[in-house]
């Protein structure tokens, strides 16, 4: 019900700065950075322990191991980061105050998202980047680029789940409900979705969904992340059965990156569509 035609970037930045500072102060950024650093180091040096070897076994295997960890961890971190962004303000009574200022709902939403995204990006890049510096002696330029690609895809997945968290935060009426919904969403996308797909594939013997399968995978940002990382690494591709069901033509990093971008923008757009009507 307000004029949203002209965005004022100063207002967006003011909100974003406050969100980022809030997460720095609460030591959220520090905690996530440390967790990611420690996990990455442990995986780089002990990731191959199951195969009876300890020590750094090359960047491709490290990325493959990190991928299967990050796919659980980062969506959870992003959902926890964002689930209370709007509903939290509503609950503490500050949402009305913010909206009584010369600030549009779109500016508020974008500012929140950018501030939280900056916190997430900082923790991700710092946490994995630190390990990258440690590893950089052994891996050469191609390896470093692969690792940088892994960090970027991690970040994109995090941003997609942060966007989903913002949507939950707008749709729910209390923090308790929002946190429950966030955990349910995590279970769905990270644990249940793939199981369901494989189940359907097995039950129907691939008859009905066979062709749809790659598209169904694109409907889950966690799966996009997995494909992005598995397909880019020749050595590990064969280790995963995924390559047999996902056509290489669809595995272009641009297409996958575009799908990820969709997962970043679409929930945010839906969140805004809902938020502008809410009172």
């Amino acid at each position, binding site marked *: *019900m*307000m*004029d949203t*035609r002209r965005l004022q970037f*100063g*207002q967006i930045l*003011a*909100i974003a700065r*406050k969100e980022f*500072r*809030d997460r720095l*102060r*609460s030591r959220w950024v520090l905690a996530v950075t440390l967790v990611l650093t420690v996990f990455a180091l442990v995986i780089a040096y002990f990731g191959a322990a199951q195969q009876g070897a300890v020590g750094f076994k090359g960047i491709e295997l490290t990325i493959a191991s990190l991928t299967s960890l990050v796919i659980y961890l980062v969506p959870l971190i992003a959902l926890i980061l964002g689930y209370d962004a709007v509903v939290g303000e509503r609950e*503490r*009574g*500050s949402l*009305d*105050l*913010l*909206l*009584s*200022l*010369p*600030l*549009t709902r779109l500016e508020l939403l974008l500012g929140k998202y950018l501030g939280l995204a900056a916190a997430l990006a900082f923790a991700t890049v710092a946490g994995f980047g630190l390990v990258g510096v440690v590893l950089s002696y052994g891996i050469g330029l191609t390896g470093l680029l692969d690792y940088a690609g892994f960090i970027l895809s991690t970040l994109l997945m995090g941003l997609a789940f942060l966007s989903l968290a913002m949507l939950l935060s707008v749709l729910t009426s209390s923090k308790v409900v929002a946190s429950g919904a966030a955990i349910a969403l995590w279970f769905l996308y990270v644990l249940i979705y793939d199981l369901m797909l494989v189940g359907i594939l097995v039950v129907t013997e691939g008859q009905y969904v066979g062709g749809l399968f790659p598209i169904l995978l694109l409907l889950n940002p966690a799966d996009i992340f997995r494909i992005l990382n598995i397909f880019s690494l020749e050595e590990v591709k064969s280790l995963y059965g995924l390559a047999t069901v996902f056509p290489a033509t669809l595995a272009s990093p641009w297409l996958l990156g575009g799908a990820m971008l969709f997962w970043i923008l679409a929930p945010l757009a839906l969140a805004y569509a809902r938020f502008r009507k809410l*009172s």
Partner: protein
Amino acid sequence: MNRTAIDVRGVARRFGEVHAVNGVDLAVHEGELFGLIGHNGAGKSTLFKMMLGLLAPDRGRLEVLGEPVDGARFRETRRSIAYLPENVVFYDNLSGLETLRFFAELKGADPRECKPLLAKLGLEAAARRPVRGYSKGMRQRLGFAQALLGRPRLLFLDEPTVGLDPEAIREFYQILAELKAQGVTMLLSSHNLAEIQERVDRLALMRLGRIQALGTVQSLREELRLPLRIEVSLRPESGERLRRALAPFADCDVRLDGARGVIVCERGRKMALLAALTALPDTVTDIRVREPSLEDVFLGYTEN
């Protein structure tokens, strides 16, 4: 002085089956300190939110400082408006000063206003401490400081003194008086009728989404013709003597309770009654005339 700061016409808003605001007309003049009184659920907060353009009315129209609240230009008008919501909780990890600077930036107010404002509200020593350690009263004062940023022309204060101690309440109204002297318009909602009745220029009584009564406290008292209430202190064992002395006042209700008596009577009998009571120095030791409080006015309206 007589220009209209808030103009509300035929406004209604429903939530499901509940008519939160059900046809309200109201004009608040510039420079006025206006009180909005009502029980919880009477529709005060809903009306506030519609005046602030946070909530769209189902019907009717609202203009604030000459601008329709749903218009494109209202964003600019917001710079001249301040709002203190009820029970607002600020950000735990930011200090009082950071909180204020955050709001100053969003309002486009001079950040140099922040420190003097904190000092004015007695938060100077706590300015750099995180808000999580603030008491309820300190949080409320921080909220008030926030409302004063950028020299607003119009203040919306929703239950502003909840959580404040009597000293802080007195200081709060002192600041309101200063603002009033500068011509600032203020709309104040409260449960605490005794507290605001001496302080507002006019008030509106809300009930079930409608404005039940509107005017000065005095005009509301007269309109209702509320009875006069006189309390007296008595010497021991003198209750019967009082009853005999008041025999001519058959229309008055006399109640005795040990050393205390309460006489409730029509206002027109006041002087005669006082004359009769002061003629009884061996019976009555003290006389207190209780003017009907806003509470009585309020009860009178809601019970009728």
